[in-house]
């Protein structure tokens, strides 16, 4: 059996003594584990009972019951919302997966055709066309920009490309091969389009995957840990309250019983006194005080100094 002790607890041996009585377990069988608590203001002891899920160890008062009920309602609502979020994310995920598959196929085709366009350009304009074009370049004219898109609460990055600045390469291959060079450039621009799209699809895929895992983890945690814990705590508090009530009731009953007996005793004592008084009066009238006779007799039991023997 495990027991978690809150930080700064003093005299935990006294805790042990009181608790083992409560739990019905011998002190030697209680193990101690220090842990950092989850809830911010209320540091609870979590008690694990064998065969059941944990419950929070709280003071079983009515206020606490109200608080726990509110938390259970919150947990239930949170669970429903998260489940909806997880479903929405999964739908998006599947859609992106389908798009990725088709984009990858088309990318294969496009890369093949653009490589072939380069071959055609090399054929007509000479082998050196590659070097000529490369040497003439200062900056990239096709650039990629990224921005955030919000999908069901998850921020997905999206890339898009834009052309900046003019290319001075319109006249490349003026004397031979100009057409092929321009065609090659168009083919490669298309290839870049497809590649940028594929890149943004793949990053959203990975991000969504992470988000879905986290959300599912939270849903499962709520479903399997938090809610049962709350329910057990509420059951426990209710049980304790009932027991307290029963104790109170029992105590009341017992006290009533005592009081009744007290009253009866007093009544009996009073009655006896009254009878004795009556008897005294009667005996006095007859000239003897039974009381004093009694006293005399009883007194001889005690030592009287006047009496020698």
């Amino acid at each position, binding site marked *: 059996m495990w027991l978690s002790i809150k930080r700064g607890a003093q005299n935990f041996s006294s805790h042990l003594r009181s608790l083992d009585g409560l739990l019905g377990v011998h002190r030697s069988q209680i193990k101690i584990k220090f842990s950092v608590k989850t809830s911010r203001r209320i540091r609870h002891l979590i008690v694990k009972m064998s065969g059941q899920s944990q419950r929070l160890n709280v003071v079983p008062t009515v206020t606490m019951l109200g608080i726990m009920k509110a938390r259970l309602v919150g947990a239930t609502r949170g669970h429903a919302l998260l489940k909806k979020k997880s479903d929405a994310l999964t739908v998006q995920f599947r859609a992106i997966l389908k798009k990725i598959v088709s984009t990858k196929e088309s990318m294969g085709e496009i890369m093949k055709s653009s490589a072939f366009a380069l*071959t055609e350009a090399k*054929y007509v304009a000479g082998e050196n066309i590659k070097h*000529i074009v490369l*040497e003439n*370049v200062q900056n990239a004219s096709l650039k990629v920009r990224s921005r955030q898109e919000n999908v069901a609460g998850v921020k997905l990055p999206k890339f898009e490309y834009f052309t900046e600045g003019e290319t001075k390469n319109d006249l490349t291959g*003026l004397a031979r091969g100009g057409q092929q060079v321009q065609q090659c450039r168009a083919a490669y621009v298309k290839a870049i389009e497809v590649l940028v799209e594929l890149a943004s699809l793949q990053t959203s895929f990975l991000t969504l995957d992470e988000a879905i895992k986290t959300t599912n983890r939270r849903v499962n945690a709520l479903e399997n840990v938090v809610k049962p814990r709350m329910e057990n705590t509420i059951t426990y508090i209710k049980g304790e309250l009932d027991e307290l009530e029963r104790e109170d009731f029992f105590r009341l009953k017992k006290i009533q019983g005592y009081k009744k007996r007290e009253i009866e005793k007093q009544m009996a004592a009073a009655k006896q006194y009254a009878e004795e008084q009556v008897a005294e009066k009667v005996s006095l009238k007859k000239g003897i005080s039974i009381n004093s006779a009694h006293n005399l007799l009883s007194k001889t039991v005690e030592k009287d100094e006047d009496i020698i023997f």
Partner: protein
Amino acid sequence: MYGFEALTFNIHGGYLEAVVRGHRSSLLTASDYNNLCQCETLDDIKMHLSATEYGPYLQNEPSPLHTTTIVEKCTLKLVDEYKHMLCQATEPLSTFLEYITYGHMIDNVVLIVTGTLHERDVQELLEKCHPLGMFDSIASLAVAQNMRELYRLVLVDTPLAPYFSECITSEDLDDMNIEIMRNTLYKAYLEDFYKFCKKLGGATAEIMTDLLAFEADKRAVNITINSIGTELTRDDRKKLYSNFGLLYPYGHEELAVCEDVDQVRAALEKYPAYQSIFAKLSYGESQMLDKAFYEEEVKRLCLAFEQQFHYGVFFAYMRLREQEIRNLMWISECVAQNQKSRVHDSVVFIF
């Protein structure tokens, strides 16, 4: 004297003409191309090529083979043959042979100029140059810090100096678009080559002027089509046309005002020689124009070999070799990229 070259040509040029004709017979034939087109991988291509004259150049390459390696080695073979011929040549054949490579030299110079302007590494630039266009002082071009110094260096060190001084001042070099500069230089080179061939006279002059005229016209048409829709003005366009050829001067007038491929076609239909080229293309299409031009060029180059005792065979051989290397590059790329169906689109059979 035209017609009497047989008497004196063989004294100086006989050995080299024989060498060139021997090389010409080792060009790949249609059956070779068919075999190559059937190949599945680059290793098959290497195997087929090792049976041809390219064998010794390719046999030391480790697999996996790359298409650029194949092209590099074939170009290396061409460069070796060219150097061999250049060593053995005397004037004026040696000058003629050098003229053939000035085109590549212009490309290399322009490449180094652009690279230096954008602060690239010199060694990398030198590696990217075409081997046929290398000359000794090319590395000194990369030392220049700005255009002014570059201009001075170019005037002093390169054989292209006269082309620079004729058409470009140092201020032009700064603002001019690199392509316009390249084409202006090439125009100057073609005109110079044309004058030189005319000076040589005889069969050389006749055949070479014909070939150069075709080259100039081809460039004019390409410049027109490629500058449609760009910022090149009509006057600039006209400045890039050479001042010889079938299209000079009336064709050039018409081409300068063209705004559309169909207008170009209309302008060229007046010349029966070029009409057949455009007949191969359907209306509005211009992609296959380059291939049509290559085919026509190959036909004319082959005709150059029909006559003896002129220098045109050297020029024709170099050009045919380059076309062959282009074919090989195309076939290897198609095989490597798994596009076998497109192989026959662009292969130009020489025989």
